[in-house]
């Protein structure tokens, strides 16, 4: 039992990173129905900005978060303006291939500029201690890093909920995702709203990137690929386009993955995640929280 609960703790901290990434995917998908393949690579850029802020600018981790969020937001907005906006009315296939191209560009651009070296945040970036926890009399441990990841995620989610539900920008985002043309007729600046969505999603990715870099203690130019794909799986599990779905899916996937590597084999972890994706698509394509919509012509 203690082992199981320990896996849950580990899974929740990994899952909260997935949830942060999945939020970006799901917001962008909700608003322009595009899988932003480059999202995982924006995460990587965010992790590097944070790294350089800590190592070269000697800033503490909180400033690194803020600078990385700003940098990634800018990148996200530029990507949207340059690559996706011209294709907004083009066939879906063209936009998807462009997103793949953008992803390849960031990965290989990263490899070209940063090299294949694996870097890691300097020791002492955060104080990482083992904390004993007691739950119903069962002794468990969590690291301060795990608690930090969980806390940061929860705070980010509260901020997001506030923005989406209690601000004009959030209202505009919901309106554009509901019906872009009607939103435009109501005087909403659709382009600006889409940019804001990309900025928000990318900022979340940057936070996830730094957390991921701390969690695995490595950053490298291809680090965003796998977490990006898995976060997309998480978004699909929860119901793509739905913000609570991305949160639920992220946590669920993190726990599931930790269980697979804990109780079965860590080599089976990645294939099982994708088998899960295909099962979900087969059984409940709209996701756990999604409703099946009949297609209108």
């Amino acid at each position, binding site marked *: 039992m203690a082992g199981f609960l320990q896996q849950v703790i580990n899974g929740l901290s990994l899952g909260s990173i997935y949830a942060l990434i999945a939020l970006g995917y799901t917001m962008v998908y909700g608003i322009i129905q595009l899988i932003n393949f480059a999202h995982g690579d924006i995460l990587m850029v965010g992790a590097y900005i944070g790294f350089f802020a800590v190592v070269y600018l000697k800033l503490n981790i909180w400033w690194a978060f803020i600078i990385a969020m700003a940098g990634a937001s800018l990148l996200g907005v530029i990507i949207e303006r340059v690559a996706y906006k011209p294709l907004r009315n083009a066939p*879906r296939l063209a936009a998807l*291939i*462009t997103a793949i191209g953008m992803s390849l560009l960031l990965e290989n651009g990263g490899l070209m500029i940063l090299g294949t070296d694996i870097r890691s945040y300097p020791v002492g970036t955060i104080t990482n201690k083992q904390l004993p926890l007691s739950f119903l009399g069962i002794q468990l441990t969590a690291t301060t890093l795990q608690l930090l990841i969980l806390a940061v995620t929860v705070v980010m989610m509260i901020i997001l909920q506030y923005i989406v539900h209690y601000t004009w920008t959030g209202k505009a985002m919901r309106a554009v995702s509901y019906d872009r043309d009607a939103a435009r007729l109501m005087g909403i600046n659709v382009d600006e709203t889409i940019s804001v969505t990309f900025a928000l999603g990318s900022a979340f990715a940057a936070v996830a990137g730094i957390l991921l870099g701390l969690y695995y203690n490595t950053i490298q130019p291809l680090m965003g690929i796998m977490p990006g794909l898995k976060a997309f799986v998480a978004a699909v599990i929860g119901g793509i386009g739905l913000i609570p779905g991305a949160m639920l899916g992220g946590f669920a996937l993190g726990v599931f993955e930790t269980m697979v590597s804990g109780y079965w084999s860590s080599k*089976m972890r990645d294939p099982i995640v994708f088998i899960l994706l295909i099962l979900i698509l087969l059984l409940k394509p709209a996701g756990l929280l999604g409703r099946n919509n009949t297609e209108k012509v």
Partner: protein
Amino acid sequence: MTKVQFSRKNFFALAGALLVYFIIASLLSTGMISKFQEINLMMLGINIILAVSLNLIVGFTGQLALGHAGFMAVGAYVAAVLTLKLHQPFLLAIIAGAVAAAIAGLIIGLPTLRLKGDYLAIATLGFGEIIKGLANNINYIGGAAGMIGIPRLTNWTWVYLMMVVTIIVTVNFINSTHGRACIAIRENEIAAETMGINTTYYKVLAFAMGAFFAGIAGALYAHYFYLIQPTTFTFFRSFDILVMVVFGGLGSITGSIIAAAGITITNAALQDLAVLRMVIYALLLIVIMVFRPQGLMGTGEFTLDRWMPKRGEAGGSAGN
């Protein structure tokens, strides 16, 4: 009406194909082609098979599939098991690899092709990862170390034969009722369905066919390079093939052939600049999509009709 005619055009196409084969075969046998060039020649043929088969799925049927390397892996592993472990003839191994890949295509296609394009993209991408993960975990086929010492049975004759077969079958498929149905799905799925086309059936059919040829390519690959590993078939390889299809034109067989050949040769020439090359491809991919979403050649084809005087009937495009 249905009289099968071996027209002048077919004759010239056949003669041209044989001519190219014999020229390169004689260059190979006289040693005019270096070892390095030979490797690239084989890759060129294999890449053409991959690009043409992916074009059938992405270009003609309009379904974005990102798991082509996975199908290639299935073909490569199954064929390698047959020759290396079970000592079966090469032809049987190629066919078995292709059939296994087609079955894999059916298994992945049936559930996911009912869904819209984006889901398909991610599901096929996941499929590629599943195949890689399974190959990593099955000790019979070498696990992470892969299979080593596969007999080198692939030669120019096999590659060329399989390439020509792939092109002929694909071109004829596209010009058939089934192919037209696929194109109708690409143009407008809802309209196609309204016209009575069983969209799921044709999508799965195109998918299985594409997988079949990718399986052939995988079998050829495995028997040329001695060694296959799970990491040989990452989604970067799927992207490579997609780049060829997009450059050549979504829906142009000759475009795919030209792009596959061009990119293989460029890759060989710029071998030392691997990363820069990928950056350039990625940029080109974006630029082409933004300014010319149908790809360089669009759906246009180079046909022999252009150079031949028309006599009576104007036949369909002959592809190569």
